[in-house]
């Protein structure tokens, strides 16, 4: 069976690519610290020596649209082109092409349906920055095949938070029951408190630092029960109008497991949002080198 080599949860900040590659007067003052934190985070994936990446993210009205909106969707294709015109325009993101792992995608679809997750699928999916940002930060050589898993955190009505946790648990079981000798990392990205297009956007910090502090504690300690007790579709409006992206972190907590303490935890307080990075090693920390905890 396949081995779950690492579970990684991260914010996806579309400005990282531009900030990290800028030079001279264009380079923002926070870029060096940000790059250092990302490079340490990247090492946690490199050390796990993955062969395949399951990438959990959420399309931002790029390909998926309100005339036919899936709640959870698996991409099954030999290749995935990536990034859209408006992401190039606003964030300077490059066009990319990633290989797909169709055998694992087929397994997730079949096994997921049999576990009562009515997953949608796409055989021609162009992926957006919710998946390419973590490729850029964690695996910039973009050399590993992926299985994209999209969730709807964006276009209400949304699934309940507990459904994200349940899908995360199922993804773990399905990866670990995949008949393969491959090492799989599951990487998911979302947001802490975030406001986009509302009066609280682009402040000095994220719109709700207290929510962010609690969220990091829930994730780092694997406190799924505590998180589910406080978080609802209604409550997520309060920290910021785009905070439903936190449910992708809850999905990743489901992958990591109840009570699973993260082996790597890091944060960075940026203008308008807090960055947060977590890595778990379900089968123990890889022996080579040291991982900051």
């Amino acid at each position, binding site marked *: 069976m396949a081995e779950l080599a690492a579970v990684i949860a991260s914010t996806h900040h579309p400005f990282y690519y531009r900030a990290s590659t800028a030079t001279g007067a264009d380079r923002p003052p926070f870029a060096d610290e940000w790059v250092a934190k990302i490079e340490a985070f990247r090492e946690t994936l490199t050390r796990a020596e993955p062969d395949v990446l399951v990438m959990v993210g959420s399309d931002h009205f790029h390909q998926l649209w309100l*005339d036919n909106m899936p709640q959870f969707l698996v991409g099954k294709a030999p290749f995935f082109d990536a990034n859209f015109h408006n992401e190039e325009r606003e964030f300077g993101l490059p066009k990319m092409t990633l290989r797909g792992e169709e055998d694992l995608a087929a397994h997730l679809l079949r096994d997921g349906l049999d576990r009562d997750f009515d997953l949608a699928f796409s055989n021609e999916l162009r992926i957006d920055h919710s998946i390419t940002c973590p490729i850029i930060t964690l695996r910039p050589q973009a050399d590993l095949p992926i299985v994209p898993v999209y969730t709807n955190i964006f276009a209400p009505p949304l699934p309940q938070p507990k459904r994200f946790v349940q899908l995360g648990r199922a993804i773990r079981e399905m990866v670990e029951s995949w008949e393969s000798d491959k090492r799989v990392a599951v990487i998911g990205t979302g947001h802490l408190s975030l406001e986009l297009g509302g*009066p609280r*956007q682009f402040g000095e910090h994220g719109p709700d630092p207290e929510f962010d502090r609690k969220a990091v504690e829930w994730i780092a300690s694997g406190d799924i029960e505590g998180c589910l007790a406080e978080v609802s579709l209604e409550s997520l409006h309060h920290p910021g109008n785009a905070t439903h992206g936190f449910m992708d972190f809850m999905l990743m907590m489901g992958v990591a497991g109840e009570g699973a303490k993260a082996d790597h935890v890091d944060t960075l307080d940026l203008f308008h949002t807090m960055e947060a990075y977590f890595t778990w090693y379900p089968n123990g920390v890889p022996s080579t080198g040291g991982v900051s905890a």
Partner: protein
Amino acid sequence: MSKYLLDKFLFTVDRDPELTERYREDPAGTVTWWEAEMANTVLNCIPAEKTTWLAFTDEERRALAEHDHVALFEMGAHPFLTLTLFIALFERDHGPMEYQRAYGKAMEHISMPYPDIAT
């Protein structure tokens, strides 16, 4: 109320660079043309298989024609779509982050709960 159609306008104009420029230079003309020619196109169907019933209200038409992002927010247009398109329209006329901050400040009178964006 046709929140879906507002979102469809923002979505289709934002993703097409020629339409984005056209909406910046001639907002009222673009809204009139779009409602007549594009509003009822089903994006995944051939042109002949059009929808027969989608139309803006007068206030929706006005808000789009006047680039009124505050009114769009108050009507429940999806804030991500509005923000992304309006950054494309107007960020170029301002210093770094200046437009984004002004965009938020123009809405500072709006309190929780925000208008429902469900379509």
